[in-house]
């Protein structure tokens, strides 16, 4: 079971109160998590990554286990604590503005 934490506005959009729990079969990667998330919550399509290119939106970041994983390939395996559900995979709205 994978735990995913969404930013406030996306929790509101998807009507999610807390963490999302996702079951994955196969390699646990950013891409697999986002595929599963968007399948369960189709209103999130296009809000985290581009519909077509699947590129991360510029002001979205991915964190887990205290590491910024935003620049990792979507196919990179995530750390074991995420795979085991000990640590959540965090989708964050980047701090920007002024």
């Amino acid at each position, binding site marked *: 079971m994978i735990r995913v934490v969404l930013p406030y506005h996306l929790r509101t*959009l998807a009507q999610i109160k807390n963490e999302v729990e996702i079951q994955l079969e196969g390699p646990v990667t950013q891409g697999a998590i986002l595929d599963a998330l968007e399948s369960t919550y189709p209103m999130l399509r296009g*809000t985290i990554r581009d*519909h077509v290119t699947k590129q991360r939106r510029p002001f979205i970041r991915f964190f887990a286990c205290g590491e910024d994983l935003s620049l990792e390939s979507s196919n990179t395996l995530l750390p074991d604590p995420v795979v085991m559900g000990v640590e959540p995979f965090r989708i964050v709205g980047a701090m920007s503005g002024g």
Partner: protein
Amino acid sequence: MSKVRVLVGTHKGAFILTSDANRKQWNVSGPHFAGWDIYHMNGSPANPNRLYASQSTGWFGQVIQRSDDGGQTWTPVGNKFAYEGDPGTHLWYDGTQHPWEFKRVWRLEPSLTDPDTVYAGVEDAALFRSTDGGQTWNELPGLREAKGHLWQPGAGGMCLHTIIQDPSDAQRIFVAISAAGAFRTDDGGKTWRPINQGLISPQELPGESPEVGHCVHNLAMHPSRPGVLFMQKHWDVMRSDNAGDSWHEVSGNLPSDFGFPIAVHAHEPNTIYVVPIKSDSEHFPPDGKLRVYRSRTGGDEWEALTNGLPQSDCYVNILRSALAVDSLDSCGIYFGTTGGQVYASADSGDSWMPIASNLPAVFSVEVQTLP
């Protein structure tokens, strides 16, 4: 008794203001989609409880929301706006060609007859249509073939902000694009042509007036007279009596002919409204006085409407989609400001009152007159 529902899109959410036909007591609902930019919210003429809202932020992109109960509850629908085929390029600020990139939806215009059909005007400028209540969107690519490679964004972005359907001819639609101009289709959106003859923009477009590139801020039309169009251009208020084939200036005695919105009275096709702004360098009313100007002669002769509006120290702006009218017997006029006020007049503009005073900056105002 009839009711009025005012749909207000702001920098931090949507608000819905309702009143009975007296338009004295107002109920404010919201914020809906708190914290998001709501560029536009609009209702279906065929089913007034069907509303569409354009919700976006720089972080999370574009969302389209739909309501089937007049805005009490909302459902996110489709937000995939993919240009048709290879979208090619348009002119960039530095004169080079630049790829078309979808940024956001500026305007949602439901069909006059079908609640499930709705048009979306987007940035980078293009027109999309949904025929399934907003679930899926398809571009009408013929518009960008109207010299799209020569369109160049202005300071506010290259947005398609105005969509007007001709109630007498389902095949005819007018659109306007910031810094590109006005365009018309006569075949339901397959082909388009620029309708900018007579527009003169010497400061932005020196030399011989080009076919595209004019900074049209807003268009308005009265449904009983679809061949007559009014335009607030970057500078100049313009009028066309032949569906945009040619334009002539009707700025007349306005204190400034710069501005953003323009609207037509619901029952008097020759009565029009603008809100003069000092200049493109100073986006606030001349002399710090918030004045709506009304012409009862279809332009040229204008009178200031000031009763109830601040006449000193007022430095707000009124954006292009933030002026609208209701269709009650005594026509109501409404506008929102970047200072978060929404003003209403129940007597065609003779007197005004704030119906909301401390909202986030207002992007858009639409009005529904309900039975």
